[in-house]
């Protein structure tokens, strides 16, 4: 394989771009008016710049055949793979960060904060996601995961003067560090067995092991430990306790970022490791993941019900959404189409969740409140936003005619397709959870539509937020009405490099 910089260009652009944003931020802080080259605009430009080669990857025939064109330092022993899955998550990362930048533009308007560092950190976090999604080596995975985590910790605690933000960051940091340590321990066990950190070589090596007596129990434990680290990132139960506090305390755009970008990264690495490394024929992880999925969605939905803070409610909602995606992951053990379903779900989830957070950001910024009681009568004060929020919440629940329904439908189709209907019970749990989730989603709608607002003063609009709202709302309908290009995208993305 040729050493070709082109295939690592998105990462290079993001890295260099991030540094440039940092520099521009310094200049901006000095009070010099650099209106066009502001950190926000530059970050968007950097993201656009990274998007171009990423999209071009899909046209490379090799990528579509599942053979990555570029693997650092050699073929199977490489550190990163540019395959369909990696490219898809690069797109997810770039899209979600772009939207988060728009949210940040509004949220931090008028506030005194260090813009350059903030946007630079966001770019670096995006870089971390792209690296994590492409990593094919345990060390690389650990590095990217920690890179993402550390940037996230700082971003969560960005509001230095806000005690809630600080508390959220500290909790996130402590929890994340322990989770990372456990994961590293699991990784070291895997290394101990196989003598290699490349995930594909690990699979080969473990397969030859299991032909004999096999260290299945220890392997199971190692997998569990590794899943602790990944599961923490996607807020899987029982490694989710950080999420509600982190989501509530963080600045709202960062909450949005955590709920989509960071989570997507976690799922990318879970999918890759469980599909190519600790494969179903190496270790039958399906029952474990199924149970985790069931517990995650149920607890997420149940604990969301009494929440009075919308960010906390959305935190538990996204915990539940992680549960649904895990259903897709567990179906991967039975049928290859499950990965397509997971990818479609994550794609649609990006739009509906970020859309919901757009509305939350507007209220966070203008009303300085995340308490549900301030959503009362929103239909009078910001009608378009209220209706949009209802659409996004219905989409999260999976009610037609939104794209969220298509996402869940695809997932259930993949799950029911499993051999001997072994995931059927989990599908039924998921359907029951849909009903439960409607209760708290409609609770928000109830407040917005049925109650009288505290004041009839219309909420001031915001251009960047309206743009994002239009985009996410449109996608929430378009993906259902005309899904062909997106399904093709998902099918192309489901091609993982398997050595």
């Amino acid at each position: 394989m040729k050493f070709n910089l082109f295939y690592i260009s998105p990462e290079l652009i993001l890295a260099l771009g991030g540094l440039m944003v940092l520099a521009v931020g310094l200049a901006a802080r000095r009070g010099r008016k650099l209106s066009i080259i502001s950190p926000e605009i530059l970050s968007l430009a950097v993201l656009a710049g990274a998007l171009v080669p990423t999209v071009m990857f899909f046209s490379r025939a090799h990528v579509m055949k599942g053979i990555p064109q570029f693997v650092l330092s050699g073929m199977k022993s490489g550190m990163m793979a540019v395959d369909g899955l990696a490219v898809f998550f690069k797109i997810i990362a770039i899209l979600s960060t772009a939207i988060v930048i728009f949210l940040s533009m509004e949220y931090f308007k008028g506030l005194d904060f260090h813009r350059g560092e903030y946007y630079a950190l966001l770019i670096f976090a995006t870089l971390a996601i792209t690296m994590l999604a492409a990593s094919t080596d345990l060390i690389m995975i650990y590095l990217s995961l920690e890179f993402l985590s550390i940037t996230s910790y700082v971003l969560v605690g960005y509001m230095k003067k806000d005690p809630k933000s600080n508390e959220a960051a500290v909790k996130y940091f402590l929890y994340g560090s322990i989770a990372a340590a456990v994961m590293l321990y699991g990784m070291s066990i895997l290394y101990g067995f196989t003598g290699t950190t490349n995930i594909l070589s690990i699979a080969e090596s473990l397969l030859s092991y299991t032909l004999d007596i096999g260290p299945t129990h220890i392997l199971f434990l190692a997998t569990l430990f590794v899943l602790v680290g990944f599961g923490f990132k996607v807020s899987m139960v029982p490694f989710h306790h950080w999420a509600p506090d982190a989501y509530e305390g963080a600045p709202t755009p960062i909450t949005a970022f955590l709920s989509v970008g960071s989570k997507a990264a976690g799922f990318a690495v879970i999918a890759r490791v469980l599909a190519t490394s600790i494969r179903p024929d190496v270790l039958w992880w399906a029952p474990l993941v199924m149970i985790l999925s069931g517990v995650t969605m149920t607890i997420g939905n149940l604990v969301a019900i009494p929440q009075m803070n919308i960010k906390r409610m959305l935190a538990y909602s996204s915990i539940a959404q992680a549960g649904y995606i895990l259903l897709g992951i567990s179906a991967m053990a039975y049928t290859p189409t499950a990965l397509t379903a997971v990818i479609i779900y994550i794609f649609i989830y990006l739009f509906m969740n970020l859309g919901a957070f757009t509305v939350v950001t507007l209220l966070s910024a203008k009303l300085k409140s995340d308490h549900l009681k301030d959503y009362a009568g929103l239909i009078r004060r910001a009608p378009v936003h209220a209706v949009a929020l209802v659409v996004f919440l219905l989409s999260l629940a999976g009610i037609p005619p939104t794209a969220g329904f298509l996402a869940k439908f695809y997932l259930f189709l993949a799950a029911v397709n499993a051999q001997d209907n072994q995931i059927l019970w989990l599908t039924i749990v998921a359907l029951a959870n849909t009903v439960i989730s409607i209760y708290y989603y409609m609770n928000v709608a109830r407040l917005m539509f049925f109650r009288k607002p505290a004041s009839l003063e219309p909420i001031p609009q915001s251009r960047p937020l309206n743009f994002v709202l239009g985009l996410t709302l449109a996608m929430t309908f378009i993906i259902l009405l005309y899904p062909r290009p997106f399904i093709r995208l998902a099918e192309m993305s489901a091609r993982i490099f398997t050595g």
Partner: protein
Amino acid sequence: MHDWILTLITFLPLLGGVIILFIPRERAGAIKVTALVFSLPSLVLSILLWIWYDPSTRGMQFVQNVRWIQALNVHYYMGVDGISVPLIFLTALLTTLSLIYSWIINERPKEYFSLFLLLETGMLGVFTSLDFFLFYIFWEVSLVPMYFLIGIWGGPRKEYAAIKFFLYTLVGSVAMLLAIIGVYFYTEPHTFSIPEAIRQIPFHGMPTLESLAFLAFFLAFAIKVPMWPFHTWLPDAHVEAPTAGSVILAGILLKLGGYGFIRISLPMMPDAAQKYSIYLAILALISIIYGALVAMAQKDMKKLIAYSSVNHMGYVMLGIAAASAGFGSLVDKTMALNGAMLQMFAHGLITGALFLLVGVIYERTHNRDLDQFGGLGARIPVYGGLLAFMALASLGLPGLAGFVSEFFVFRGAIGVYTIITALAGLGIILNAAYLLWMIQRVLLGPLNPRWAEVRDIDKREVVSLVPLAALTILVGVVPAILIATFNNSLMQIVRAVVRG
């Protein structure tokens, strides 16, 4: 035009609903006119559809089939037969009349009328769609606007009633979703097409699976109908909903359940249908008797009519149960099924009108307590006449629509489930009892001085009621216009149940 008529009928209301969103909320008049302008074409087209429908041809007509989601073999597949055509007309008619009645709504008219039109599209779509994916989408689409209609413009317990309605119906819907996915995997090649699934009988020779699928669909439809014991959402939803909302709930949404049984459950899972037919009949009987008895105990006029719906839909289910039996003559069973369809149509007209009438009196008196009324017949004679007329229609007075439908159900079902049908006759007596008692309490006797200044029914209300009354007489005297439309399609379904 042929291809597109169903799409136009279904989606013109939605277009109207979207347009209304752009009208400033202060211009209530413009909003209401727009709503009417976009619901009338569906009504006119549905009449044309009925005239153009050819009952003698087998198969679906006015079919439109476009590939939608290729990867899943999902199609935008629309088509009608004799069963859907009258129901489409009923939907369009009741919605238009409800919109006319709702002209007095002055609180948040913009949301009201656009939600109403969205609801109309949802209901019409259920009757026109022939692809399970599409069917499910429309089925669910009708839930959301109804939730908001009840929750914003409803009575004192509106929030409770709204979420109860949503969650309860959703439970049935998700069960149906699982069954739909099952149908997809057990058809070869995998398809969501309803006519194709019926042709293939996906669970043939797999009784457990077929029973499970049947029960999953049963849950969704039984909750909608509603059959005892899945009826408990109905009193709350019907009573707390605004008048037009109750009309739509009772007049059309309940029919979605009956339609589901006839269109899907019976022909696609024939063995299970035969196996569970007796239980359907028993539950129908309980609905009939229970509904009537509880109606009799009501002091709230709206609740009385709500429970009468449980009773009347019981007759529908009795007809369907008889038609799904594994024994009995084809003639009897087809007659019973004809009766079920007639009853669905008649109940839509009659109970729709009754809810409108309750709305009329409530709007003037803000009272629904039957004991507080009295003597209104002399005070507001036109209203009294219409109320009495509709109540008599509801109890099955010969010459009116209620009689022919009940007659057909009983005449057909008695040949299949003799004892159950005989017991169900008790329901007719009970119907007469509580309806006549209601008339007596409202219209006869001494006039309560509180209502001395009550105004009689006005033009708008009359316009929304007279078509229903006229159709009630028409169907009662010439039921052939309905039977001729759907008899052939129903015969095919009865045959389909026994072929399995």
